[in-house]
């Protein structure tokens, strides 16, 4: 647990990282560094997109799985690490972090 906290802190402390969010499987944010309304907005939108992406990947080959999603835009880059389905952790969670590219 402590290691998780440390890693989270390190990631958040990077210059260039705007925000970090941890979202559970339903799209409800558990932990965030942004304000509430923005968090909810991003969580909802990205949750849907991730679901769609995962559905796409698995449609093409059901044995495949989505491991990472990156969206690069003019101003930011959004990186989403979706948690894969596992029997041990029936509640899936996703981690989203915003990254503002250095240059």
């Amino acid at each position, binding site marked *: *647990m402590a*290691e*998780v906290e440390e*890693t*989270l802190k*390190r*990631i958040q402390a*990077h210059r*260039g*990282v705007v925000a970090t969010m*941890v979202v*559970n*499987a*339903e*799209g*409800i944010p*558990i*932990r965030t560094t942004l304000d509430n309304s923005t968090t909810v907005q991003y969580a909802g939108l990205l949750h849907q997109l991730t*679901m769609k992406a995962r*559905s796409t990947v*698995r*449609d093409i080959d*059901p*044995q495949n799985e989505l*491991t*990472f999603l*990156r969206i690069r835009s003019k101003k930011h*880059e959004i*990186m989403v*690490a*979706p*948690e*894969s*389905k*596992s*029997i*041990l*952790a*029936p*509640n899936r*969670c996703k*981690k989203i*972090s915003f*990254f503002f*590219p*250095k240059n």
Partner: protein
Amino acid sequence: ILSGIYANKAASSRSLSTTSDGKAVDRASLVFDDEGKDVTPHPLFRSDPNTVVPRQGKLLASSAYFGATGSGFLSSFSTHQTSGVNGSLGSTYGSSSTSLSNASTTESILDEIQKRPCLLTSYNFSDVQVRQEEIREWTKEDLDRRVDIYLTETETIWILDMPSVVVSVESEDAGRVLERNRIYVDICKNRPGNDRYVEKMMQTINGAAKNKEVQCDKIIMEDKGLLVTSWDLYDSFNVSEIEPTSKAEGSRATTGKSSTTSSLMISESAVLARIHEEEECHSEAILTSENFQQNLFFMERILMENIFQPKLAAYRQFPVLIVKEAKQEEHDKEKKDKEEQKDAFVDPSILSDLNKTPEEIVPPRLERLWSYICDLTNGHNVSSMAWSKVNPDLLAVGYGAFDCKEQKKGLACCWSLKNPMWPERIFRCEHGVTALDFSMASPNLLAVGMYDGSVTIYNVRSCNDAALLDSSESSNKHTGPIWQMRWVEQDRGATGDGKKERLICISADGRITEWFIQKRLDCIDLMKIKRTESDKRKLPGEKERKREALISQQAAGMCFDFHPKDTNFYLAGTEEGHIHKCSCSCNEQFLETYRGHKGPVYKVAWNPFSSDMFLSCSADWSIILWHQDSQTPILTFSSATAFVHDVMWSPKSAYIFAAVNESRVEIWDLSASILNPVTSCFANPRVKFTSVLFAKNTDCLLVGDSKGEVSVFELQNLAAPNNNKVRFTRTRWWSSEACMLVWYFIPPKGASVKDLANRY
């Protein structure tokens, strides 16, 4: 429940006559609704059972061959289980007001069929009753039971048989038919006005019609859409035991509903409360789950990749895309030219470069890519670095001070190329780490030697800080700092064991030990370094000069290196400045002693390509190149007035080596110049460089300094390494008292030997 059949609809289009063939609603065919109330519909007509029977018999007699179909119809009825009372099966079955006696041939046979099933069912009542009883006693297992159904072919059922009324002219009956036709034509002709034919009309009485309405519970309709995807199918087939909750929550329906969370919801408020609770405990579960940790790990690495991508690409020797405009490129080129011109006056090595490779005018340089540094290691002195033997991107760095004054807790970290900002493994040690090495046979073992002389072995697979093995229990351990340790693969030809790996350490208490990895770490002495007097020829280790009061009989060992080809020999450098050549098979005596340094020898290194030469660096500000057959130095390199802490041959070229003294790191290329390094890089003012390491798979150099930073430099434009087969031959050499030693070697590209000799 079959009673639904018997609800009769008077509006049936097939009702023909008044007499009814009522279906006696027997007690058995009852309709019960959900609460068990008897809501059997009353039939509209109650027929006289007496009248029914003969007709049934008659019907059955005439339609014996329809008996086979009775069961068929029955089964079809049984499927039509109507809930509720509106059990009308449509006009096809529901006719009660038919009369058999009025069945005329002009009626279509279909009518008969429609009537017939109704009658048949009433006949087969007893059967039906039985069957119903049976049905009611069936249990769930029975329903799940496998039932064998045998399909057989019945006799041909004629549903419609309309014989043709057309007869061929040539058939046998033709004559008769023609005769009949003729008679009929005559009759038709005689008909109008004929008394024999009278038209008469008659009106039938219509039976009393009764309307009956039935109302049932509202059928609630719900629309449900589901997008079936191929992975959905795959999952359903493959997943066997998942709890129902997770299944429900995992609905992948692309409906906009978000209410498919936990499936135990009953009411809205309950939902909210539940979500909150579950969220709390689930968020804990999420944060501590393994998957989350892994995701974080990946995320961090990807962030690193984002930040360091160009540098990593340069490390891997990918051509780096320059997204600058063409103008800027020209600028850069001009600058380079100017620099090179300046250097040309100062550095003869550039000229030699020009001579050799006229097309290349770019001098070699060191370019700093990045540093392995983090808060944790800030302020510690880098004492040693080692690559992992299997993963060329994994680096182990030991942090510990060289002086006894600055001792603090030491650190050994494993850094990965993929994350230059935080080490993958951190091992905290009690004392400063002075030496470390990865094992070859078990690549997950990292041996660490410390300032107090203890040896610890860590398993880098685990993140745990605890050591795998410790030498603290060993009675024979070192009493001085371990300055170098190495895992050496050695042939044990005598014992027939084949290649084995041994852990060898040299320490300041003058012993070279070999450690055994068993349940406890223990060691034996390979060699004790006895003090030798420098100038006088003396047998090593026997006599002690009475005049000098020596603290110990043994000289501190600082470094060692095993011969690359024959692992029985090794060199050991001492604090006195002597280098001894020793053999594993002889514990008492040195094979040879090389005297040349005036200060402690910090490092010895055999040339990996030409195995007779070795380098040594020392605190007397010099680096010396030796040949193993000569007891006096061949070449001395001194370029700065600072301790030379570390020296290492390049793994790619026999002429290139890197040396680090306190203020700068130098790259020497012997084929270019033996007076000056071809390139060097200065350290930051308050920082001293302490160790150097070449990267095996790429042209990069790692330099560790006293502030805990390990910088990665890229070597650019060094001479092409095509000299694996170089031989150093000796034609003339002078003793070390002369200022310059000339050493001839066969240059790779055929430049004349005399030129070089003349130059120097």
